[in-house]
């Protein structure tokens, strides 16, 4: 069955083999719908970035499966090297989460956000000097469509009814249903623009894009090396002469590579190594707030969680600050049982703040006539790093409210197939979505494929449908605020923490504000960052 309402997605099936978990690249986050083009932040930086030098970036999840075929991209390696350095999309996610034009200069919607006309940038050329035209854009989207598509962007392009071109510089996309967020969805990293082939299709095989860097060498699972594109369409960019993304799956090896100067930046730092970086005068720790959040999800359809008082009591029985201090060593922020990250536009405050209050929880249960509440909580290290420890603390916190939590330690391997979406109370790791519409359609509407909380609320669904094709930001904002309040009050989500991307880098690397919707400065570190030591 094809979901008529929009793109879907969910958390990351982390399959650890006793090694660093395989991290899938992801989408999340959002920004206000701003159709206007604005300059990338790096151009606004106060001190002028210097030109030259190279960036070596230690990536945690490069895989020998990596390929230049954009539909198959699943790793940060592909995202940062191919989507961010080799290619451009029609639109670009700026560091502040807002949307800017990239290969498309501007766009207009018509007919209730079902018809989108993109005006493409003129004078852009591919690395082989071929001019970029509307046909390239059309074929790059069509590549992901079709009955037998295995593309990671299938959920996005399945909303598209028709793509037409008008001259060299206009692309007209007709949707099956109005979607005011459609330009945002085009920032999906799979939807990179490649040159069209004669007779249809795109030529991804030759590794030619429009991006700031040309492909020099690509050894899957080992490294991708790129060199400056002298004819890049963004003035003054890129700064580096050369960038190299190096796959280092082992955490200790990655840290060693940074300490010995083999690489300039590493991602996914082990939080236990934070003090090591902070002590080192040559290195700097960089935290970028992300959309990623860790939760304990209760299934609202299953007893005893079908009782609102039980859900509310459990929400009040977790000392979030304690978990963040002890399990995440302070590297995290509390949420308020609202899965929407602070950096997302349309995020609303959802009072009252759910704080640890065992007495209130006890009173709630007594009022509802529930005695000796006992629940099973499924956890595993692969649910999210530290899930088991967080569960142990939760058990102790809840005991003070008279609630017995039986901690069920599930097998790491297969957690995302056998526990998540299956067990009524489980730990989950969410990487968020680029828009609220997408986030809710993924996990919280009644028909959401990854509705881990079994949440069914007709008012919520109504608002979701209304907000989707609503082009007035004020009305949309009001809809989204009400939806977040409903989730906070009645939903089954207990947000344990919101976490940041943790990068460790050499002081020789300069950067402006960094984006946290996607890893590696929204994948575009190669063109946005620079060296300070040349």
């Amino acid at each position, binding site marked *: *069955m*094809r*979901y008529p309402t929009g793109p*879907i*997605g*969910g*958390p*990351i*099936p982390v*399959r650890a*083999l006793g*090694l660093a978990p*395989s991290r*899938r*690249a*992801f*989408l999340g986050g959002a920004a206000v719908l701003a159709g206007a083009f604005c300059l990338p932040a790096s151009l606004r930086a106060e001190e002028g970035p210097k030109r030259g030098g190279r960036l070596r970036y230690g990536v945690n999840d490069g*895989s*020998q*499966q990596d*390929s230049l*075929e954009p539909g*198959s991209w*699943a790793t940060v390696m592909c995202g940062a090297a191919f989507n961010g350095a080799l290619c451009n999309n029609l639109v670009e996610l700026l560091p502040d989460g807002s949307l800017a034009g990239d290969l498309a200069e501007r766009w207009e919607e018509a007919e209730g956000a079902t018809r989108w006309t993109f005006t493409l940038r003129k004078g852009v050329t591919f690395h082989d000097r071929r001019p970029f035209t509307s046909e390239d854009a059309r074929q790059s989207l069509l590549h992901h469509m079709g*009955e*037998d*598509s*295995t*593309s*990671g*962007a*299938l*959920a996005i392009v399945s909303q598209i009814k028709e793509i037409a071109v008008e001259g060299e510089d206009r692309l007209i996309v007709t949707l099956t249903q109005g979607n005011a967020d459609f330009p945002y969805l085009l920032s999906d990293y799979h939807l990179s623009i490649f040159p069209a082939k004669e007779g249809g299709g795109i030529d991804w095989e030759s590794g030619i894009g429009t991006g700031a860097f040309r492909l020099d*060498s690509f*050894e*899957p*699972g*080992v*490294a991708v*090396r790129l060199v400056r594109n002298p004819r890049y369409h963004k003035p003054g960019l890129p700064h580096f002469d050369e960038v190299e993304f*190096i*796959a*280092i*799956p*082992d955490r*200790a*090896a990655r840290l*060693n*590579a940074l*300490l*010995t100067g*083999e690489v300039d930046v590493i991602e996914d730092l082990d939080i236990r190594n934070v003090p090591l970086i902070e002590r080192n005068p040559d290195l700097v720790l960089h935290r970028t707030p992300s959309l990623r959040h860790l939760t304990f999800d209760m299934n609202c359809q299953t007893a005893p969680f079908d009782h609102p008082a039980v859900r509310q009591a459990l929400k009040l029985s977790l000392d979030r600050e304690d978990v963040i201090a002890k399990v995440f060593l302070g590297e995290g922020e509390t949420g308020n049982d609202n899965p929407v990250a602070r950096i997302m536009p349309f995020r609303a405050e959802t009072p009252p703040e759910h704080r640890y209050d065992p007495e209130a929880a006890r009173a709630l249960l007594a009022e509802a006539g529930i005695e000796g509440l006992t629940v099973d909580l499924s956890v595993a290290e692969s649910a999210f790093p530290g899930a088991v420890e967080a569960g142990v603390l939760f058990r102790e916190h809840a005991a003070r409210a008279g609630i017995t939590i039986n901690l069920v330690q599930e*097998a790491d*391997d*297969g957690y*995302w*197939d*056998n526990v998540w979406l299956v067990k009524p109370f489980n730990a989950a790791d969410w*990487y968020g979505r680029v828009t609220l519409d997408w986030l809710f359609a993924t996990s919280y509407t009644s028909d959401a*494929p990854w509705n881990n909380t079994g949440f069914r609320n007709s008012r919520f669904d109504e608002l979701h449908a209304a907000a989707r094709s609503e082009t007035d930001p004020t009305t949309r904002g009001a809809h989204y605020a009400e939806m977040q309040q409903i989730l906070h009050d009645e939903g089954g989500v207990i947000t344990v923490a919101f976490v940041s991307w943790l990068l460790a880098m050499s002081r020789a690397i300069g950067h402006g504000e960094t984006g946290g919707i996607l890893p590696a400065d929204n994948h575009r570190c190669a063109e946005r960052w620079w060296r300070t030591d040349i």
Partner: protein
Amino acid sequence: MNRTSHPILSMVVSRVGLGLLSLLIVSLVIFFSVSLLPGSYASAILGQNATPEAVAALETKLGLDRPALWRYLSWLGAAATGELGQSFAGRPVMAVLGPRLLNTITLASITAAIAVPLAITLGVICARFRGRFIDRFLSTSTLASISLPEFFVAYLMMMIFAVKLQWFPSMAGIRNSMDLGEQLYRMVLPILTLLLVILAHMIRNTRAAILSVMSSPYVEMARLKGESEGRVVMRQALPNAIGPIASVVALNLAYLISGVVVIEVVFVYPGVGQAMIDAVRNRDVPVIQACALIFATAYIGFNLLADIVSIVSNPRLLHPR
């Protein structure tokens, strides 16, 4: 003369046959245990984009909707003709593993070329000067390095030579674009680590094998005839200890191919071991199968070689009554 070549020939044929049978069993075990792993390639690779229809499309494309037995047999048929099939990512398995295998073999060959002569020489010296300082020193230090897990040795090497002294790079991530000199320079630490791991084993076994021969009556006889101790060890004991030495050398060579996974991960060396980990993580069954086949072939092949060497070097085994 015919009688002397026949036993070897028939022995080799039967050993090779047994080796192939073991390979078959290994492939069967690997195939079905991989299919027991929870999760599928499609959901692993699509990650959070794993919509039901995308999963279904990918599985049909890869033939994963067919019965496991059918997939196994068709893979086996192709593998028998040397065709290891396509990785799920769409590239031929040999294209994925070829460069990795070459890297692993390079690392193994260099290490073996240093380790084997060195280990046998040191083993002989230990046996010759049994109980003296050099013997006690080597025995103790090899015991220590055997007792340390290999990853610990690796991190130790890295800490001393890469982080503190900064003589060698911490990453052995060699690439095709590097020249031979740089590739070798980057391989120093993994080679050093592997040397420490396998030298100890081989030295101790060489020493033990020679010493056990040294207690035989004919060695006593040689001594009584007035041969020097060095000549006794080299001429009388060593040739008769070749069998056990060959088997420990073979085991260690096989380890260099199939057991270096941890070392490869720690030093980010792009060998077969890392490729296999990557494949298991993504449930890329054709690649896992091929890796397992390579590892099993290495083990069985080296053991076969050791058997043959020890039989040929021992007339009693060569001419069984």
